[in-house]
């Protein structure tokens, strides 16, 4: 049982939680994720760790309300207990001195991007971060990202904040004006796919952090499998980060839709039962 220490709304649908998990806080590294189970009847959901405080023994996660489990989590409050938290899972990000690093975060993907931006900055890189979202309300952790970036570019689909346009517009601008040595992109699968296509065109080595469906998260089930360079890999134990130019995003997108109808029906039922 892990106690929720702090809850903060970024927007109606995006919530940050600081959760007690001293062992995980101590051993986690940038890029690691955890699996949560909210209650005895809950499903196991993977979420990437955004920050950790070893002294207080806490980890920070950011969740967007999408399905039943994330709605349930978002409804939990400070002082409540999450039934199970296990981790840190996955390989940590490979941090190195690349030169100029372009860090692209889409929506809640900015949360897992934060520790990576910090680590690349601390490794002596010039870091240019692009935060992209549909609108201003969905831009999160801007101040925190600024702290570790040499420059931050904001992109919104509707132009309500920063520059109007999708993430790749911002990427093209940066690539056009300076040499980018390495790129990392975290966000919705479709966004990562287009980030990958953009950097492939410019031959910039790129890493993406995949957020596939998982059950156990320890290599046991293979629900998270995805083709990388023509070979089936498990995101939980082989990833979650892979060479963006080798990921079969179409297969990944298809696999992420496996339970679409069940998820939709379950969410309807949950909303009706809870008057949402």
């Amino acid at each position, binding site marked *: 049982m892990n106690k929720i220490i702090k809850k903060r709304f970024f927007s109606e649908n995006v919530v940050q939680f600081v959760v007690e998990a001293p062992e995980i806080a101590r051993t986690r590294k940038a890029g690691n994720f955890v699996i949560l189970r909210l209650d005895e009847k809950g499903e196991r959901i993977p979420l990437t760790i955004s920050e950790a405080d070893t002294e207080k023994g806490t980890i920070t996660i950011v969740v967007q309300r999408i399905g039943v489990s994330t709605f349930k989590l978002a409804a939990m409050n400070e002082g409540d207990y999450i039934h199970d938290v296990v981790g840190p899972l996955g390989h940590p990000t490979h941090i190195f001195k690349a030169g100029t690093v372009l860090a692209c975060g889409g929506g809640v993907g900015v949360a897992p991007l934060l520790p990576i931006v910090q680590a690349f900055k601390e490794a002596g890189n010039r870091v240019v971060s692009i935060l992209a979202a549909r609108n201003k309300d969905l831009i999160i952790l801007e101040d925190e990202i600024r702290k570790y970036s040499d420059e931050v570019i904001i992109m919104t689909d509707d132009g309500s904040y920063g520059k109007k346009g999708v993430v790749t517009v911002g990427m093209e601008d940066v690539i056009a004006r300076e040499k980018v040595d390495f790129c990392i992109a975290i966000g919705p699968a479709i966004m990562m796919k287009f980030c990958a296509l953009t950097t492939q065109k410019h031959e910039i080595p790129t890493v993406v952090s995949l957020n596939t469906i998982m*059950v156990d998260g320890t290599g*046991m089930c293979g629900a998270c499998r995805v083709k990388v360079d023509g070979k*089936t890999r498990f995101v939980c134990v082989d990833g979650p980060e892979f060479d963006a130019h080798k990921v079969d995003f179409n297969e990944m997108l298809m696999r992420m839709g496996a339970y679409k109808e069940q998820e939709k029906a379950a969410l309807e039922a949950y909303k009706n039962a809870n008057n949402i």
Partner: protein
Amino acid sequence: MIDYKAERAQAWREELRKSIPAKERTTLSRVEMPMQDKIQRRSNNKEVNLGLTEEMAVKESHRCLDCANPTCVTGCPVNVNIPKFIKKIEAKDFLGAASVIKETSTLPAVCGRVCPQEKQCESKCFYTQKLQKPAVAIGYLERFAADYERESGKMSIPECEKPNGIKVAAIGSGPASLAWAADMARKGYDVTVFEALHEIGGVLKYGIPEFRLPKKIVDVEIENLGKMGVKFLTNTIIGRTISIDTLRERGFKAFFIAAGAGLPRFMNIEGENANGIFSSNEYLTRVNLMHAADPEYDTPVIKGKNVIVVGGGNTAMDSVRTAKRLGAERAMIVYRRSEQEMPARLEEVHHAKEEGVEFLTLNNPVAYISNDKGQVQQAKIQKMELGEPDASGRRSPVPIEGSEYLVDADTVVVAVGVSPNPIITSAIEGLDVDPKRRTITVNPENNQSNIPDIFAGGDIVRGGATVILAMGDGRKAAQGADEYLKSLK
């Protein structure tokens, strides 16, 4: 070592032997296991085998000849004192029978249900060996004794030596670890079992379905370990959450790694990553551990109409019978060899057939065809024939060119084996791991790895075995760890 001859010579045994002539015993026919109706059970998850009544068990015990040379014992990987426990049943001392089994086996109620007895003890029974008659139903009797004890409410908790304050850790909580933990607790050690998942029991919980092994039976065993002082920590991945080095710093003096064969194998054929295609681990974990078929629980599962399960082992049988219970109209086993080569327990194959499972043996999938949403629709299957015996001694299947045909399938479960879980082995520097099989290499005498305080057993050493072999490893490793720890003084 047990002196079987001396035990057999004891007055009570001799008296029992004389009470019914051997000739008369051999005329009795083997007991039939009462079962849940084969139609009814397709739509529920309750246990199929109902267990013997006292009367049936005693009658079956009469068949045992109490042989001078009990070969059955040699067929048991942990050498349960079979004639002694069966004769205790004959003497109607059922609790006594259970305690005889528990001298060597940690989980008799589990083994009585899931051991492949026909390949072990029962294959070495005098009836099988010399009389060409059905073996004494050793497995059924083991289950009877264990169930009787549990239901009597007089379950004995093994006596433990005085606590010695030495901390030891088991990694994983399946049958190997539970056996190790029990033995170490008995020897007075301060045992903690670390489990990565949210429930204790490993494959007994996520893998073997309720209809074959009710979870409450496993829970009772775990509770008993708790009463012996064993501590359990779920949601803890050794090598990730806490490293072995950290555990050493925290005072742990010996480790038993039994993290299982966690990594499912796929066949790497065209279309295998389509939606609706699962590893058996995923399919069974969703249904057993996550209760996906219960609408009260959040985890979803696809309830297929036409389900193909690829493989011929126990996991394949568990998967296909689960599919039937989830409402499949057609549930099919697709296996590349013939039924004779199937590694599954005979009883599971038999039960599956009774439940209406179709067996497409000498068939092998070569590709899957999906619709535009990526949902599997059909399997392309190739027919096979048997060729020369391969390394395993079984005749190897050879594809028949041009024999491919299509079978409708909206769900496919791949049950073609597992590989050892990589997390723990890759987290321990210098640990001797087989480069090809990724299994931990141990000294077969005591299950010690090349790192003196680390022992290992079960599937992470064997690559895929049975509950009883895993348990046997746990017991051997406990002996080994005890000797190692005593040598430090």
